[in-house]
Structures are given as structure tokens and as C-alpha cells.
């Protein structure tokens, strides 16, 4: 078994009385892409924010690269390499494109490496490079997503968490984005990917977890989960009929 970059045990979180996560356990091995899928309101964003530390979990333990980070402040987690590309991208529109990228690298001291990496991003996305000193509000949704991804990469992540990065992108941009995630993964980046676009996510992921109303409903090999017809109906397409308990049991435990 590979070394685990992320090991989450029995994580619970709530908003007031609403229990958004109930005893969620999840592992990401170093170098893997793991995807978490589930319907709206299943608790996917809550999971990522609990991992980052913007939400304080009520229970559970988070180990990152072998260390218990459950009580670390957000900036320390990011410094250690646990970085989030947030839902809705959260580009800072009062700043230029370049300033957004520099902000992503604000914890780093190696100025010349940062410069090189920014230039690499410009090479990859000429649209960003050409407008580097323009306000970031001039970008299209897809370009903003690339900027958000570039900004996150500049924080030198070991595990990159992405919250619905394909939301609102054209099919062309979506496939570009997924190619890019695969590229970064091949270069050694571990990825925890949350997606509504489940077909694409399951295609590039190694492992998958299905969240349902704050609980893990299924987990296992991404290809196997993608192949489950029942799952397709219940979670990935319309909810035609319930997945039976027996089905769930079958898929849980596949993994180990």
C-alpha cells in the first residue's frame, strides 16, 4: 500500500443544528486522484472546508503527510501543502492577474522560483500572460478557473483540493481542465477532486467516494463505481430509484 498523504477518520461537522458531515472517513494515497461525488447538499464543500480549517469539525481526526493537523490554523495547513481551489473560484477582482498569482505564493521565500513558475503558467495560458497587468475581472469563467488553479499551484501543494472546478465551463474548457489535472498528477501531485461532472471525474480518478446526506454511501475503485448501473441512476443521473443497502455494502470495502 502507498503512503497516505491524507487520512481522515470519522470527521463530523455541523452548521448550528444541521449536521452536514457525519463520521466521514477518507484516504488519499500519495500520487493518487480521489474524487468525491454526491448530490447537491451532500456535504462535499463542507468536507473540503473542514479539511482546510475554515470550518471547525465537531469530531474526528485529520492526518496530513503523517501529522495530525486537526488543530492547525488554516495558513499552517496551506503552508504544509494542503491547498484548496474553492468553489466559485474566488478570484480577487480588485487585483491584477499577476497579483492574484503572487498572492497564491505569499508564503514562499524563493522569489526566483515563484517568478519561473508564474512564467510557466503564462506559457501554458497565453490568455493570462497577455493580460497579466489587467484587472482579473476581465477574464472569462474558464480563464478565471485557470487563474484559480495557477494561484493554488503557486502555493506548492502536495495535495490539491478542488471544489467543482468544471462548474460553468464550456465542454472544451472542461476537457482542457481535466487534462491539466491529469498532467499535474503525473508530475506527482495528489488530488482530491469534487465534481458534479461525475463522468469526467470518475474517468480521471483512481479512487472514488460517494457522499449522501453527509455520510459515505459508497467508496472504491473509480472505474468500478463508474460501472455501477444502480449508482448511475441514483447519484450520477436522475434519482430514478433508491440504491439498496445490499448494493452499498457491495461497494464499500472494495477498496481494501
Amino acid at each position: 500500500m502507498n503512503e497516505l498523504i491524507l487520512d481522515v477518520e470519522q470527521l463530523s461537522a455541523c452548521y448550528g443544528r444541521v449536521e452536514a458531515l457525519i463520521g466521514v472517513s477518507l484516504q488519499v494515497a500519495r500520487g493518487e486522484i480521489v474524487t468525491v461525488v454526491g448530490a447537491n447538499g451532500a456535504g462535499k464543500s463542507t468536507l473540503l472546508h473542514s479539511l482546510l480549517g475554515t470550518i471547525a469539525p465537531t469530531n474526528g481526526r485529520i492526518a496530513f503527510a503523517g501529522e495530525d493537523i486537526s488543530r492547525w490554523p488554516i495558513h499552517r495547513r496551506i503552508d504544509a501543502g494542503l491547498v484548496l481551489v474553492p468553489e466559485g473560484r474566488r478570484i480577487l477582482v480588485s487585483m491584477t492577474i499577476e497579483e492574484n498569482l503572487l498572492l497564491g505564493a505569499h508564503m514562499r521565500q524563493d522569489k526566483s522560483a515563484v517568478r519561473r513558475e508564474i512564467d510557466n503558467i503564462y506559457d501554458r495560458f497565453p490568455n493570462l500572460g497577455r493580460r497579466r497587468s489587467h484587472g482579473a475581472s476581465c477574464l472569462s469563467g474558464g480563464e478565471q478557473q485557470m487563474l484559480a488553479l495557477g494561484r493554488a499551484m503557486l502555493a506548492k501543494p502536495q495535495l490539491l483540493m478542488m471544489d467543482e472546478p468544471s462548474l460553468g465551463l464550456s465542454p472544451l474548457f472542461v476537457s482542457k481542465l481535466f487534462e491539466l489535472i491529469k498532467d499535474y498528477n503525473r508530475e506527482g501531485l495528489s488530488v482530491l477532486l469534487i465534481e458534479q461532472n461525475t463522468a469526467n471525474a470518475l474517468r480521471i480518478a483512481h479512487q472514488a467516494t460517494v457522499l449522501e446526506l453527509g455520510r459515505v454511501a459508497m467508496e472504491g475503485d473509480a472505474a468500478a463505481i463508474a460501472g455501477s448501473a444502480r449508482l448511475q441512476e441514483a447519484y450520477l443521473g436522475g434519482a430514478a430509484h433508491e440504491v439498496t443497502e445490499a448494493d452499498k455494502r457491495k461497494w464499500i470495502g472494495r477498496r481494501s
Partner: protein
Amino acid sequence: MVAVAFTLAIGVLNFLNFSIPGIFMIAGMVSWAALKSGQHWLFAFGVALTASAAVGVAVYFLTYRPSSDSDPEVPLVSSLGFLVLLENLIVLWLGSDQQSYPALIADFNFRVGSIIVGGAQLLSLALSLAFVFALSLSLRFTNLGRQVRAIAESRRTASILGVNVGSVVPRVFVLSALFTGAGGILFAISYLQVSSSMGESIGFKGISAMIIGGMGNIWGAVAGGLLIGLVEILSTQFLGADFVNIGVYGLLLALLIIKPEGLFGMAAAREKL
């Protein structure tokens, strides 16, 4: 200067910091007291700035931090309390009389048309502009400056990106207090008098300048301040000294009706008040 300090406080912290006029006064009075006891002016200014920064830190820990999750009105009221407290402390310590401030710069006046321009005033104007220029450069080009601007745009986004809001915000408080303190010293140098109530009218003018210039815009605040100064001079000149405030607040009123977001402001920034 005061307008810029307010702008910094509101833009970044979403917090109308009413202790700013108090800090302004503290710097003026403390430097006066130090000068009077025979200290070198460098030392006096150093003490005054240190006192300003200390008050800034105290305001952060006593008013802003305990209430940063609650109602935005709470720190507003408690910082107003700080203003009252500071004024009364100074009254107890140094008395409430108007005190004359020693002239540190040889006085040289010259006339532009019918208006007399004081050399000391001109010098403090130049110094203020230099400080503001340095501030805006560092907001623009330094790492900390970018973090401050990120917090100003969205505190939540900034923290998701790993900006340590809990350490950047108190630094902004200190910076804003130092700025105000420098403003108080420059005011004392150019007008040659200080008193325990010198902060009040300046506070109103600072807020007016900020509103006129457009909230959250540093250079707007400077332009607003200069405009107010100009209107003051002109209305003294043409309407008489009694009408100065009518001129200034008339301008403010007119501007709020014509262009409520301020000369250089964005509409959204107004919500922050």
C-alpha cells in the same frame, strides 16, 4: 493623513475606527509635552509615534478583536469610547488648555495671489503626500500590501488563500495609528498649537474627506482632504471665518446628492459604513 488612516481602517477592516482622532490628538499632545520638558524633537516625535502605535494596539485588542464576529456597531461604539477616554486622560495629565507648540521650522511665508501660504504648512503637506505615496506603493508592490488588499476585498477569500488574517489586521491597526500620529505631529508643527480637543474637528474633516474622495480609495481620500482644505481657505477668504464649516459641509452635502459614491469611489464600498 487622517482621511487616509480612516480609509485604511474602513477599507481593510470594515470598521469605522473612532479612536483615530484620539490618536491624532495623543501624538500632538505627547510630542508637545516631551518638547516642553526639554527633549530633542527627534525623541519627542519618537515617543509620540510610539504612544500612537501603542494606542492602536490597545484599540485592536480591546475593541476590535473581542467583537470581530459580532455586530459591526460594537467596535464602532467602543472605539468612540476610546476617543472619550483618551481625551479625558490627556485633560487630566496635561490640562484642557490650548497650548502653543514651539516653532521647529524657521517660519517663512509667501503669498500666492491674495492667499498667504505658510512654509511649515507647505512642508507638512509635502511630507504627508510623501507618506501617502509610500503607503500606496507598499500596498501595491509588497507581499504584505497584497495580503492587506486581499483582506479588504474579501476576508474569507483571503483566509482560504492562507493569509493569516489574525496577524495582518493588527499590523494594519498599528500602521493606521502611526499614520494618524504622524498627521497629528505635522498638524502641530504647522499650526503651532495643540489641545486635548484638537482631534475632534479633524476627525469630522477626515471622515468628510474620505467620503468626498470615495471610500476605500487612498488617493481619493487625499484629494478629498485637499479639496476640503481649499474650500476652507476660499470660504475664509470670501465668506469670512464664521462660514468655513458651512462651506465644507455644504460641499459634502452637495457631493452626496450629486455623486453619492464619492469622487473616486466604487458604489459597493459605501455598504461598508
